[in-house]
């Protein structure tokens, strides 16, 4: 967080820079127009998702009598169908439980691991740090088959625990890596003072380091929560019964029936499933951006 604020502050001082050299018409063509196209393309699918959600079925595919870009008689029928006639609320609940549990578990493990690697500096901590980095590069696509075998043998197949225990495989490396960066920014002197005053390592961690690393914890937590919410391949492989599915899997496997696609319900499902992460994101944009860029920035 610290470096983000300093860079923005530094930029504020240089606001303007050489921009006065450019004239408005030129800026419209080189900056505003391309930016507008980018924003339009990046946002259009969401608009389309939302507008389809509220379209009654007769308007949905009737492009002759209704403009497809607008909705004449908005309806909540699709959302009502989703909430009362499908298992959608259950999927939402599952996703929340699984994401929160996996995030909490990962954060807990990551805080200790990051502190140990970054601050205890025991023999071999560098190697462990490198191992954590490499673990982050192992994609779920090559783990899901052996994990499916394991999950089955452990008797976790088709339970939420299967996902709560496997999500940390990609969350812990990420969170540890991120928190290592935050711990690094906390001055050693603070810890040394505490050590001289007779504090134990545990007290240093809980009373000094963690309070100072709260922005990092929030960033890592938000990001981990979003990653678990978005996870698909494990949830698709390890869960079979409808009542244990997560939103992405449920929408794709249960709402798509035969050849007749109920686009209204599908889009409503996609919209409602996206809203929680989008709302969370809108509250913590800065944390989110800093955790994403923290990975690549010193």
């Amino acid at each position: 967080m610290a470096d983000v604020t300093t860079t923005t502050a530094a930029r504020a001082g240089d606001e303007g820079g050489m921009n006065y050299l450019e004239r408005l018409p030129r800026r419209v063509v080189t900056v505003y127009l391309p930016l507008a196209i980018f924003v339009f393309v990046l946002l259009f699918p969401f608009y389309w998702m939302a507008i389809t959600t509220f379209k009654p079925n007769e308007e949905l595919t009737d492009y002759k009598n209704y403009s497809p870009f607008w909705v004449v008689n908005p309806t909540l029928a699709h959302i009502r169908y989703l909430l009362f006639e499908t298992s959608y609320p259950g999927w939402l609940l599952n996703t929340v439980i699984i994401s929160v549990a996996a995030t909490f578990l990962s954060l807990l493990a990551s805080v200790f691991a990051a502190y140990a690697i970054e601050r205890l500096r025991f023999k071999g901590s560098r190697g462990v740090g490198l191992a954590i980095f490499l673990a982050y590069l192992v994609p779920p696509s090559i783990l899901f088959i052996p994990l499916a075998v394991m999950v089955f043998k452990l008797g976790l197949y088709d339970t939420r625990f299967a996902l709560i225990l496997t999500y940390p495989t990609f969350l812990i490396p990420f969170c540890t890596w991120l928190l290592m960066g935050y711990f690094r920014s906390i001055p050693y002197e603070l810890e040394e003072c505490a050590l001289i005053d007779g504090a134990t390592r545990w007290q240093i961690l809980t009373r000094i380091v963690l309070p100072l690393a709260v922005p990092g914890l929030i960033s890592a937590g938000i990001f981990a929560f979003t990653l678990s919410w978005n996870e698909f391949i494990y949830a698709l492989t390890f869960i079979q019964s409808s009542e244990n599915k997560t939103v992405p899997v449920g929408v794709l496997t249960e709402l798509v029936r035969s050849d007749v696609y109920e686009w209204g319900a599908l889009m409503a499902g996609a919209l409602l499933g996206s809203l929680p992460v989008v709302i969370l994101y809108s509250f913590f944009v800065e944390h989110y951006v800093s955790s994403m860029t923290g990975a690549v920035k010193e």
Partner: protein
Amino acid sequence: MAGTATIGSTRRSVSLLERLENSRLGLGLLFLLPAAVLLLVFLTYPLGLGVWLGFTDERIGRPGIYIGLENYGFLWHDSVFWLSVFNTVLYTTVASVLKFGLGLWLALLLNERLPFKAFFRAIVLLPWVVPTVLSAIAFWWIYDAQFSILSYVLQKIGLITGPINFLGDPTNARASVIAANVWRGIPFVAITLLAGLQTISPSLYEAATLDGATSWQRFRFVTFPLLTPIIAIVMTFSVLFTFTDFQLIYVLTRGGPVNATHLMATLSFQRGISGGNLGEGAAIAVAMIPFLLAAILFSYFGLQRRRWQQGGRD
């Protein structure tokens, strides 16, 4: 995992808590324990198990026996597998190049002095925040064979006469899934590169301008060299995630039409889980590892001078 391998020697048995308090190694290993256990059990072990499964004929519901390289031998003569390798390389190359080009462009645009800059940055990131499967379902509807909004608009303008068969034709399907992947990947590239751009001091541009540099030269000789380390990291990740992509294809085409969009990950799922042939699926997944290793080695050696991977500072 070299460091964590010594976890067995953790001196937890030491009865005196104080001795543990003073031993940095002991305390360090104790602190590492939760993360190490989770990662060793659910990441390192499955990685090994996956390699082992690739040498067996295990099926769902039936334990397998060691069959040596039979799975790989079969895949070697399997044209669908080679098609999926080709598709994966094509998909990764084209999508990564587009994501890099467009992402860098967007980052440069967002680095300009703009009103509501923070707002723009926030909404630009949305495609990356929303669950891939859910946005892919929106793309599925946008790519609908009959009621595609794209076809409708193009017909209105008069560019085409009939609706485009986005996902039914091999070439179109490939282009469509790549477009959806690029759509989702641009924000990540743009926002991370933007963070890199913001660390470049404006005085460098002023100095270059005074020396008579054109805007292209300022980009080529100031921006680009200073951005290279971040570009390398971002693109390594981007390539890695594109190469192992699964969700988008699974939602949009399931590998069809006629396997034209099958990636190695989706083929592995189809053979391993849907088809129940765990050994063969694992073998396909293992075949992805050399490509991934190449990307990781590139990241490691290409970025040797930035030692952040090891938790050190520059």
